[in-house]
């Protein structure tokens, strides 16, 4: 029986590759969005305007305080009530961007806050504009602090893409979930799913370990 199911699993393996492609697509678009949004929010979070900083702080707490599944349900089920219809794929990207940017924002803000005040003052007295101060003085130095946890966060974000399967995005976990109904060998099917996730995220884990050792 086992061999028979294994045969079936090999037959539908292309289906898994499609799921893998979807996971990679969701992950990469989300990493891109989250990084950009996270950096913008993080710079404002660490900025001098206390009011904006507070508001971003509340946003971050709200996002970090709720599970990602609940956020997805809110976006997917509640936005239509307010007249915004979203397909599963854009809804997934939106949810990932909102969630990921909150986490990256805190990492970036932590990095910027770790830069001593003297560096800012030196940049101001050299006559740099605010953008130039950030671009040439603060952010390059902060990158040392930001990079290791950022890559660690990327791994977490890639793994969190598995949760978007609950609203029907045909990614890897969803494919496994559909397959296990037809091939009732849970260990086999989800081992395969796990191996495919491992292939994507393990290189990033190694990179994160390497960065942590080098930057420390």
């Amino acid at each position, binding site marked *: 029986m086992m061999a028979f199911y294994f045969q079936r699993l090999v037959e539908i393996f292309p289906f898994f590759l499609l799921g893998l492609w979807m996971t990679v697509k969701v992950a990469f678009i989300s990493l891109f969005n989250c990084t950009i949004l996270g950096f913008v929010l993080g710079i404002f979070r660490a900025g001098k305007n206390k009011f904006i900083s507070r508001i971003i702080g509340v946003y971050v*707490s*709200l996002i*970090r*305080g*709720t*599970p*990602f*599944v*609940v*956020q997805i*349900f*809110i976006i997917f*089920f*509640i936005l239509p*009530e*307010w007249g915004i219809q979203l397909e599963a794929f854009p809804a997934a990207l939106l949810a990932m961007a909102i969630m990921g940017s909150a986490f990256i924002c805190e990492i970036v803000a932590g990095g910027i806050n770790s830069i001593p005040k003297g560096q800012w003052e030196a940049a101001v007295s050299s006559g740099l504009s605010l953008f130039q101060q950030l671009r040439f003085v603060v952010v390059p130095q902060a990158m040392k602090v930001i990079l290791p946890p950022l890559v660690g966060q990327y*791994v977490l974000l890639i*793994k*969190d*893409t*598995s*949760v978007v*399967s*609950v609203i029907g995005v045909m990614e890897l*976990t969803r494919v*496994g*979930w559909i397959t*296990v109904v037809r091939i*009732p*060998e*849970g*260990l086999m*099917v*989800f*081992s395969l*799913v*796990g191996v495919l*996730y*491992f292939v994507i*995220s*393990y290189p990033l*884990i190694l990179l994160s370990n390497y960065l942590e050792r080098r930057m420390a």
Partner: protein
Amino acid sequence: MLADFNFRIIFEYMPLFLNGLKSTFLISIISIILALMTGIVACSCRISGIKIIKYPAIAYIEIMRSTPLLVQIYFLYFGLPTLGLRIPEIQTGILALMLNSGAYIAEIIRAGISSVDEGQIEAGVASGLNYVQRMRFIILPQALGVTVPPLLGQAIVLVKDSALLSLISVAELTRSGQTMTSERLMPAEAFFTVAFFYICIYLCLKTFSDWSQKKLIYREAY
């Protein structure tokens, strides 16, 4: 937008939510205790010099850290019955949370132990302390301070992760939101209430974690 937000229905369903909150609490507390034990065992194996227990521990930690929790939950949920093990969903869920968080906790503890300066250990050796005494009197007291804040962070993550158990129909907080949505078609009321409860738990743990971090900084300063 929120003009027709129906508070009456939330109060009508309050017993369901409170029940869900209670199970989320219980699941989280049981899982974090079990995960702590798993983490301590995995970490001891990981840092021991004996290859036959070191490599399985490394494999366990790396596999858990590089696959999504949802896949691990489904693996156990669909996989255990094929092995002839039929256990209730809630126990499957706790097992998954325990194994997942255990791997992270093992890494947290390892980071804490390796943060203790090499010279401290050498001083211990020079004072004639044996391995257990060095652990007990030199390494652990110092490592504990570095370990507690990230452990509380892991507890926060675990509470949020327990929401995934709703997908294998464990009756916890998120599940009560789903139940209310399917009975009354009011997702806004249901999921905002659920989110509210999660944020309450988060704020409590976060305050505690910030407080412990402040204590730690104080200890370092003096």
